[in-house]
């Protein structure tokens, strides 16, 4: 499996090597890549028309998207795809799944929990064909052009993402994927997948941010020597490398764990995003003045890291649930 993982990652890195979102790669071009390259079908089982590479395949790709700050709704879209591929068959399911895997934008909320008729934190809703409304008692797919569905852009500090609020009236026509306990399971499947993808995006970004920082420290000279020679800075960088390595090991362990619960994925996401945040905060500080300028990419990583940390439940949310599960003896 690890060979496929490496091949996927290499291919993705090559395809994305034109540049980063912040410095040239056109937003639409980059956002279209995952569909064109077949990355959106990597984690889908083969009997559903996917590549059957599971979470390992998803991690390999999502890490590269994070590394290159790729725009677009991939995290939300893999959640929709997971829901479609795990839902019981319904009229038109396979066609929808195929379209979604091919890159037709289908999106969903990356908020921690649903609230009323307003679906918040929905990436790229303006160009989506469908919005998946995830609730623990009902999972339903709503057409973007259904009567009464309205999208409102909410500009974010993170320039590599676009988020929308979507008004979905209760009586809007919808394809119901699951209800009752089945909906709870499907909701958890979709959320687990998205949390995992966010964690991978965070660690790809963290690796890139640290590599850029180390390169900068090696290049920048003050006091007649490269900054990288100062032990005070080396030790900070080493701590970041250590944190990334451990979080990455946890990512691959959870990728291979078929029994990983929603909580396990939430805890992973919280941990990975904590690391990403720490790395990008240090990235700005270690770049000094240039880290404060908009023409350098540091701020893009910091902003993406902070948005990742806030989406789908922040560290406090998941850590508290982990702590409670420990107390109740229900944590794996």
């Amino acid at each position, binding site marked *: 499996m690890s060979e496929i993982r490496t091949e996927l990652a290499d291919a993705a890195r090559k395809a994305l090597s034109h540049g980063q979102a912040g410095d040239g790669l056109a937003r639409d071009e980059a956002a279209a890549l995952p569909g064109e390259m077949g990355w959106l079908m990597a984690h889908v089982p083969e009997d559903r028309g996917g590549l059957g590479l599971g979470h390992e395949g998803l991690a390999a790709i999502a890490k590269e998207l994070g590394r290159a700050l790729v725009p677009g709704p991939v995290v939300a879209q893999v959640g929709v795809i997971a829901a479609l591929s795990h839902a019981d068959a319904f009229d038109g399911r396979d066609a929808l799944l195929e379209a979604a895997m091919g890159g037709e934008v289908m999106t969903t909320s990356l908020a921690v929990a649903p609230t009323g008729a307003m679906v918040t934190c929905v990436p790229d809703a303006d160009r989506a064909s469908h919005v998946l409304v995830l609730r623990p008692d009902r999972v339903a797919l709503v057409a973007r052009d259904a009567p009464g569905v309205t999208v409102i852009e909410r500009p974010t500090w993170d320039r590599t993402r676009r988020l929308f609020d979507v008004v979905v009236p209760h009586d809007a026509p919808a394809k119901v994927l699951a209800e009752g306990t089945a909906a709870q399971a499907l909701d958890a499947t979709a959320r687990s997948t998205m949390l995992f993808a966010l964690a991978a995006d965070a660690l790809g970004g963290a690796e890139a941010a640290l590599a850029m920082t180390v390169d900068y420290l*090696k290049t920048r000279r003050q006091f007649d020597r490269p900054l990288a020679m100062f032990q005070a800075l080396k030790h900070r*960088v080493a701590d970041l*490398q250590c944190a990334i*390595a451990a979080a990455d090991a*946890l990512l691959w*362990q959870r990728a291979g764990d078929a029994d990983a619960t929603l909580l396990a994925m939430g805890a992973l996401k919280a941990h990975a995003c904590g690391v990403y945040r720490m790395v990008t905060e240090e990235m700005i500080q270690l770049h000094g003045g240039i880290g404060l300028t908009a023409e350098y990419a540091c701020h893009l990583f910091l902003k993406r890291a902070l948005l990742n940390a806030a989406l789908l439940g922040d560290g406090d949310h998941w850590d*508290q649930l*982990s702590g409670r599960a*420990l*107390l109740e003896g229900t944590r794996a």
Partner: protein
Amino acid sequence: MPEPYDHLDTLRQTLRAWLAANAPADWRETCTSHDGFLALQRKWFTTLIEGGWAIPHWPAQGPHGAWPGGGRGLAEQKVIYEELARADTPRLILTFVSTYHAACTLFEWATPEQQAKYLPGILAGEIWCQGFSEPGAGSDLASLRTRAELRGDHYVVNGQKLWSTMGQFADKCLLLVRTSSEGAKQAGLTYLLLDMKAKGVTARPIHQIHGDEEFAELFLDDVHVPVADRLGAEGQGWAVAQSTLSSERGLTLLELSARMRGSLWRLVELVGGDEPGVLRDLGRLATRIDAAQALADQFLAKRIAGEEAVGDASLVKLMYARTLREFTSMGLRLGGIGQQYHEPIVFGGGMETGNWMADFMNSYAWTIAGGSDEVQRNIIAERMLEMPREPKSWVGA
């Protein structure tokens, strides 16, 4: 070499069943004194030897027949350590240096005569210690100054050694000495096998801040060591010492990570209410422990596959050490004022005994010993991330 899954699974089940019948119960209660600790450690070592679980990392065959339970691959050793941790058995602290550091160094460097002289004793429970560090040579080990002068068929050794684990109970010592002051400091080192009963050897236990005495300082005053007890050639000591330092192959940190994870209940039982701040910190710590364990696990998998990279071992140690500090610190916090009332420690009870003040102070052993956090950070930065070294020379007052 990777082992087929079903074979490892069989091994795991076999050992699990054996442990159910043989692992000592409530053993910490007997370790309230040094005597109790020594008795338990000796008995458990003998039981493990008889069961064939004490020396899985040894070769299958010795010069006079099979070593009991030897010849197991790294993947099998990993299973064994995971199960020993899972069953919360005592760690073999007393014989750890003899079965790992001494034995592995002997396998690599000893003559057949030396192997025949020393290995059976190790199997019989002889205790070895390591005489490497000195008052003036800690992180900068190669600057050590204990002198050995060749006089006919023996060396005469003078100097002082520090941080010799279990040195006060040891029968033998792996001794690194200076035989020359010429050239590079590493080139003047020689490796000797010292009989702790030799004339002129004094071992004094070091009183640690948490109340244990796991280390000794050794005073060597005109001690005679036969040339026949030298490992490798004169001046080859640094190379021999590298075998000693790399002998445990990452298994210890895997085992310790598993033990830390298995000890989470000790924190959980201290949580009184459901104060969100406490739950969050506990949950965050639990995930961090998962990450530390995943890293140790991945490291060993890389080693088994021959894919270990420079600095990987430092990442594992640094992550474990920092996480253990947080773990014990959390115990201290949750234990409140109760932890400030002195309780006697459990000797050899492990890194997390629930006596949090002692455990917290003991956690410094992992951030300082075996290459301090600062040394590990240098290795990661300079060898892994290829950041330039600082200029070597310093002319100070």
